[in-house]
């Protein structure tokens, strides 16, 4: 008989990951080389039972369920691949503008995946399409296609970098199970509430983008939570960060120097400790943005925005605690193997040098991320959802990478059991990009337009040659259309006819230039639409018979 705890873990994971997610318990801890070695060290330090679960095919996930014993620690393949990819943004010295564009697209895709699982599904499709279309930015690089990347991670040579990317997320999660999490920190300790609050206040005052009201609000949240700045949370995260760095240092050193008989490179290790918190920051900001973009109320979205505004402070606070702790740990360790004095200061200088080296890449990544956030949270001036899917449809005809990415996204949606109108539309355009997109049930405006048909089918919209040129009218009301065109329909030559055609006007399409949705060859036509001032004027002139060239 299955034990209730075991069954409950399976059910909780299914609830957290979505009904069709594929996950498994890694009982052999052999996903990566040296995994057992790293996890044994982690287990020795935390002294609390845990079990590792892997998830395939879901959005980036890294979480634990501390209510169970052993506690499940969950990591998705996507999270690891994304971490590896993001790390490369810092490593591959790309041109800044390319880096900004690639980061923006990556962020949009991650936001899309997270919204698909935890937020607004329609928005998820919108963000995904924005991430892949080629009509803006530098164009899609085959950056997040991850076929083979998993294997690359598993087969990569054992280095400071491969160990860090493979295990940092997992070790951080395990850090939440560490007994240090339960400890009361004495007065004056850097992790005690009063010291932390003083530090937070001092740093908050340095943030130029927060006014005094928001600063006050942030301080209140730091005191009482829930917030990224809440002392209890910052403490818990800092302990997990320090734990991850500590185990990573010890095991990397042992694996590289003792087991593999190679030289452990301290600079390379510190480089990873500088970049990894940035990656955590990136993925988390994407999750917050997906959540804010899916919020139903402006208050909830505002709260998320305030949290996002103070989040860099929380990250830099955590990074500084982690850095000091790592510097101290390495200095102590080196004291046993080398008699150099001032080790702590030397290591801090090394941190400064490495941070400075990657500062341009960090700035570019922040810019790309900011662009993605702007697209998601500022509706003003951005494209309509359906317009964007239609742009993608046209690109798909010669855009294999886009198609592959869309297939992967739709597969993920299917595994999460997600359905929706925009998702259906996306699947439709993937199936046949030549087929025009149907109407957007929420935003599209529908017009009746006269269309001239010949013996071989539709020819063109039926218009009038006026003193303003060739004019085609679009009507909201069928009655007005009928009143005007019923007679015209009877007057055309034998073999020809005028038929009432329905056109959909995307709200964000160019004014007056409407894509014909239900014609095979995608003609564009300038329409004078009912409801506009021009339409009223032309109609009046039509009634007065003054619209024609020779009457002017």
């Amino acid at each position, binding site marked *: 008989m299955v034990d*209730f*705890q075991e*069954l*409950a873990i399976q*059910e*909780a994971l*299914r*609830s*957290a990951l979505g*009904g069709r997610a594929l996950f498994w318990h890694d009982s052999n801890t052999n996903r990566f080389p040296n995994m057992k070695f790293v996890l044994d060290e982690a287990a020795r330090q935390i002294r609390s039972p845990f079990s590792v679960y892997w998830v395939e095919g879901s959005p980036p996930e*890294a*979480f*634990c*369920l*501390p*209510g*169970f014993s052993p506690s499940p620690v969950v990591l998705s393949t996507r999270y690891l691949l994304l971490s590896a990819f993001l790390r490369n943004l810092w490593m591959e010295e790309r041109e800044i503008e390319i880096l900004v564009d690639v980061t923006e697209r990556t962020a949009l895709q991650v936001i899309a995946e997270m919204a698909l699982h*935890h937020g607004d599904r329609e928005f998820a499709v919108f963000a995904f399409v924005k991430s892949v279309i080629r009509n803006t930015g530098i164009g899609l690089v085959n950056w997040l296609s991850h076929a083979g990347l998993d294997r690359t991670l598993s087969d990569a040579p054992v280095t400071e970098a491969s160990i860090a990317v493979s295990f940092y*997320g997992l070790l*951080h*999660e395990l850090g*939440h199970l560490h007994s240090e999490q339960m400890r009361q920190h004495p007065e004056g300790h850097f992790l005690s509430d009063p010291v932390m609050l003083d530090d937070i206040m001092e740093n908050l005052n340095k943030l130029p983008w927060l006014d005094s009201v928001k600063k006050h609000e942030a301080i209140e949240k730091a005191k009482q939570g*829930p917030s*990224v700045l809440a002392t209890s*949370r*910052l403490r*818990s*995260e800092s302990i*997990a960060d320090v734990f991850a760095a500590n185990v990573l240092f010890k095991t990397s050193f042992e694996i590289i120097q003792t087991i593999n008989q190679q030289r452990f490179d301290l600079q390379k290790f510190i480089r990873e400790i500088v970049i990894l918190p940035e990656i*955590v920051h990136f*993925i*988390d900001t994407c*999750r917050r943005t997906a959540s804010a973009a899916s919020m139903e109320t402006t208050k909830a979205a505002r709260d998320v925005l305030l949290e996002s505004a103070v989040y860099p402070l929380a990250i830099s606070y955590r990074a500084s605690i982690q850095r000091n702790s790592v510097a101290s740990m390495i200095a102590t360790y080196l004291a046993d193997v080398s008699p150099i004095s001032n080790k702590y200061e030397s290591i801090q200088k090394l941190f400064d040098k490495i941070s400075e080296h990657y500062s341009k890449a960090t700035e570019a990544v922040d810019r790309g991320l900011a662009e993605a956030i702007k697209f998601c949270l500022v509706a003003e001036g951005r494209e309509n959802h359906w317009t964007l899917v239609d742009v993608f449809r046209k690109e798909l005809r010669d855009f294999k990478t886009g198609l592959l990415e869309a297939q992967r996204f739709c597969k993920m949606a299917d595994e999460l059991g997600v359905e929706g109108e925009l998702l259906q539309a996306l699947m439709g355009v993937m199936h046949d990009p030549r087929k025009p997109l149907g109407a957007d049930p929420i935003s599209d405006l529908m017009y009746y337009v006269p269309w001239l048909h010949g013996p071989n089918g539709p020819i063109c919209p039926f218009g009038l040659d006026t003193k303003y040129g060739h004019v085609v009218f679009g009507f909201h009301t069928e009655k007005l259309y009928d009143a005007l065109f019923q007679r015209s329909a009877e007057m055309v030559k034998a073999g020809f006819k005028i038929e009432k055609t329905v056109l959909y006007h995307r709200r964000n399409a160019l004014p007056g230039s409407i894509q014909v949705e239900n014609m095979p060859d995608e003609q564009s036509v300038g329409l004078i639409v009912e409801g506009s001032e021009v339409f009223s004027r032309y109609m009046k002139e039509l009634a007065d018979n003054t619209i024609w060239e020779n009457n002017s």
Partner: protein
Amino acid sequence: MEQADKIIVVQGTRQAMEAIRKTIDAQRGGESVLTERKDIDGDTAAWILVANLTAQAIPHVLSFIKAYVAMRHVKKIKVGDLQIENPTEQDLEIFRKRIRSIAAKKK
């Protein structure tokens, strides 16, 4: 002793999950586990309650959950193979009826 035979999974706010758990634990033969889902950035994305209940206890528990559903404190609920996201009070009523009818058929 009555054997618990239905797994119920509820996801929502901490306050709601703790209250629902108390009710579940008061049922004869019921057992439960409550956990937070702690993300890498420290956010508690959700509280997940998994419980094992007798079929007879489920309608009562669902009635109790209804109040939290009305306050939108419940994000997901799963009873046996039936699952609803962002449930409404009406959804819960449908749930109750279906579970009652399944129980009646079993008799």
